[in-house]
Each structure stands twice: as structure tokens, then as C-alpha cells.
């Protein structure tokens, strides 16, 4: 097994109103990691730290074997980075940007850049200051993808993209990992996209990584069970249950520790399980954040 492309261990960073605590992340070659969390949870801060743009207060950060931020110059040769905050030179055209990157990046693939120009429906002679937000994101994606880097780090790349452009971007990201040496880390609020293409899910809330695991395992653990509870009976609160909502005799149990014998426990307690549903990443996201907030207020 080759070395991980991203390794964060015990990473801390303090600001007056925000603290990143004990962040641990690991991304293996050939994988897509979806990085999710509510606004202000620490996604961008974590990404800036792993890109060496800001220094962590504590902890170890290695990106493609390079200690960050110290060896960032070496690491960045093989990283394509796109963030919402990045700006292009407004007076110059996209073509100028493409030629500029091609002149400094030996791995630039001009045939692929041409293809992306068409797929993303961009015009090479357009001055970048006249681009819409979505077009600017697509232009930056083109500049990052055509470098054919080993690692793509994308902070909210889907923001502002129309559904067609998003599909095109998803296709390109999946093309990247058809090579098992390359990896993608992307943060996004589009949980559907994250659910679709991620191998790994990292979930951050209030500066802490609350989950970082294999997507299939992650989705499999969450279930919503619809139960009928006879009056006078109450349901036991089992470990992993994040919410029970009752209305009359019907209770909806949300758990993040589903096992096949779980329904039997409830049946023994007198309940009848009517239906067991899988949950979408969006539903899990909301349930996870709501339950952790409830705990904090308790």
C-alpha cells in the first residue's frame, strides 16, 4: 500500500471565536474524500492548513509526504487547489491564464484543457472579470484539472454551478480517480454530490471531526425506524439513538448504530417495527448536527 496523500494528526488552531481541535484526517491514493459540515464548522480552516496557507498551532500535517507548512513549495507542485476565495487576473482572458499555467507547470495537458473548455462551456477569450461566479469556478477547475495533479483539493467547488455544470464536474472528478494514484478532497454543501462520488466522508462540526470513515459503512449505520408503541409502554434508549420523535402511538427512531438485531430489541420492549428506512447523507447531516447541538444545550 502506498503512503497516504493527506495525513493530519492532532491538528489545533485557535482564533478568538473559533477553535480547531484534535483534527485527524487521512486520505489514501485513489480515493475521493467528501468533507462536510455546517457553516463555520472549520472546513475552510482545515483546508487552508493542509494547503500550508496558514500554520497550525499544534499537530502534524503531511501532504504527499511533505511536512506542512514548511515544505509546501514541494507539495504544491502536484496539488491542484481551487477555493471560492481565489481570484483570477480580471483584465486577462482565460486563454492568458491557461498559457500562464502551462508555462510554469510541466504536467499541463493542453489537449485536456481544450476538452474541458468545451465541456464547461467556457470562452477562452473572455476577460475573467466578466465571468459569472459559476463560470469563474469552472475556469478555476479547468486550470486545476488540466495540470493533472496527483491531489486535487477543492473548497466548495460546486457552489454556484448549474446542474449541468455540476454533472460535468462530477464526471471529471470521477475520471481523476480512474487512476488509482490520484485523489480528490472536496468540501461541499451539496450532500447529494458528496454521497454520490465520495469513498470517504469526513464530517466536521464546531472545529472537531465527528466522523471520518468509509462512505458505505457510514451510510449503513444510519437508519430510521418507524415503530408502533402500545400506550403505557416506553421505548428503551439504546446506544447510538440520536432521536426519537413520538406522535400518538407512532414513534420514529433515528439511530447511527444500526445492527440487524436492533429491531428485535424494540420488539422485545413491546414495540412493533413497521418500517426501516435508509437515510440520505443530507438527512444524516441534519440529524447529526441537531443531535450534537441538543447535547451541547443539555
Amino acid at each position: 500500500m502506498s503512503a497516504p496523500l493527506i495525513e493530519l494528526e492532532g491538528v489545533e488552531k485557535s482564533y478568538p471565536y473559533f477553535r480547531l481541535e484534535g483534527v485527524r484526517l487521512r486520505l489514501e491514493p485513489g480515493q475521493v474524500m467528501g468533507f462536510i459540515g455546517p457553516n463555520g464548522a472549520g472546513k475552510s480552516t482545515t483546508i487552508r492548513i493542509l494547503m500550508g496557507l496558514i500554520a497550525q498551532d499544534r499537530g502534524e500535517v503531511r501532504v504527499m509526504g511533505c511536512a506542512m507548512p514548511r515544505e509546501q513549495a514541494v507539495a504544491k507542485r502536484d496539488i491542484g487547489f481551487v477555493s471560492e476565495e481565489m481570484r483570477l487576473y480580471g483584465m486577462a482572458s482565460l486563454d492568458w491564464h491557461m498559457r500562464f499555467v502551462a508555462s510554469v507547470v510541466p504536467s499541463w495537458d493542453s489537449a485536456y484543457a481544450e476538452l474541458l473548455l468545451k465541456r464547461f462551456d467556457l470562452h477562452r477569450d473572455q476577460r475573467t472579470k466578466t465571468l459569472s461566479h459559476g463560470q469563474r469556478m469552472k475556469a478555476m477547475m479547468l486550470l486545476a484539472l488540466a495540470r493533472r495533479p496527483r491531489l486535487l483539493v477543492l473548497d466548495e467547488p460546486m457552489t454556484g454551478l448549474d446542474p449541468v455544470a455540476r454533472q460535468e464536474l462530477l464526471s471529471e472528478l470521477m475520471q481523476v480517480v480512474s487512476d488509482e494514484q490520484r485523489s480528490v478532497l472536496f468540501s461541499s454543501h451539496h450532500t447529494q454530490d458528496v454521497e454520490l462520488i465520495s469513498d470517504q466522508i469526513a464530517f466536521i462540526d464546531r472545529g472537531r471531526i465527528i466522523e471520518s470513515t468509509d462512505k458505505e459503512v457510514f451510510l449503513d449505520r444510519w437508519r430510521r425506524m418507524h415503530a408502533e408503541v402500545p400506550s403505557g409502554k416506553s421505548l428503551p434508549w439504546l446506544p447510538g439513538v440520536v432521536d426519537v420523535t413520538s406522535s400518538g402511538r407512532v414513534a420514529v427512531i433515528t439511530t447511527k448504530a444500526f445492527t440487524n438485531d436492533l429491531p428485535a430489541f424494540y420488539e422485545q420492549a413491546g414495540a412493533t417495527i413497521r418500517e426501516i428506512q435508509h437515510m440520505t447523507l443530507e438527512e444524516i447531516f441534519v440529524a447529526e448536527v441537531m443531535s450534537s447541538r441538543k447535547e451541547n444545550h443539555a
Partner: protein
Amino acid sequence: MNSLFIISQADPRPMYLQLMEQICQRIATADWPAGFELPSIRALAADVRVSVITVKRAYLELERQGVIVTRQGKGSFVAEGADVGLRLREQELEDHLKSVAALSLLLGVTPEQLDARVRVLRDELTREKS
């Protein structure tokens, strides 16, 4: 964007199950005969635009069910004598039984009553056939 399979996010079933079913359909219709080499996991993932891990899980599950065989370093192939038609029917029966179980619970029908009703229906079918 002409993919081999389509994963629907409006489908309540997990994505790996949707993928398994669509692969089984290909095999049942003999589009993919015994010995046919399946696309590599990464190629299929890129084609369908779904994570590598999801395709991997679908392949592992199909392998466990004996529908496909994976030869190390060679790829995955449709198993000889994988009677997928039968398997699909079996799956269909399982699905219907699940709905029967759920509905009988809802209506308070006991397993004994269910058994009796199924017997009546089976007898009717055998009589019709003969």
C-alpha cells in the same frame, strides 16, 4: 453522458443495491453471458459517476452470491451457471414476503392465518393449471 447504468438518488435503496440489480439484469437478459468480463471497478465508477467504494461493494456482494467471480489481477467475470434469472425471482419472492410480513403485522394477521390463506391461493393455482 451515456452511462451503462443509472443510479437514482430518488430511489430509497442504497446505491450499491441499485447497481447490483442493474448488473443482474444484464446477466439475466444474457447481454452479459457467462464468462463475460465486467468493466473494472474504477472504469465502471467513472462511467456511472458513482464512488469506487460503492462499485467495489456491489462487486463483492455479487461475488458472495456467486453471480460473478473475481480472479486476482485478471478482473471480474460473470460466473458459469450463475442462474441469475432464478436469483432474481428469488429476490422478488423475498421482497413480496417482506411486504406480506409488514402488512400482516399492520392488520394483525397471524402467521397461521397467513399460512392458511397462502395454501388456499396455491390450491387455486394448481387447480387452474391442471
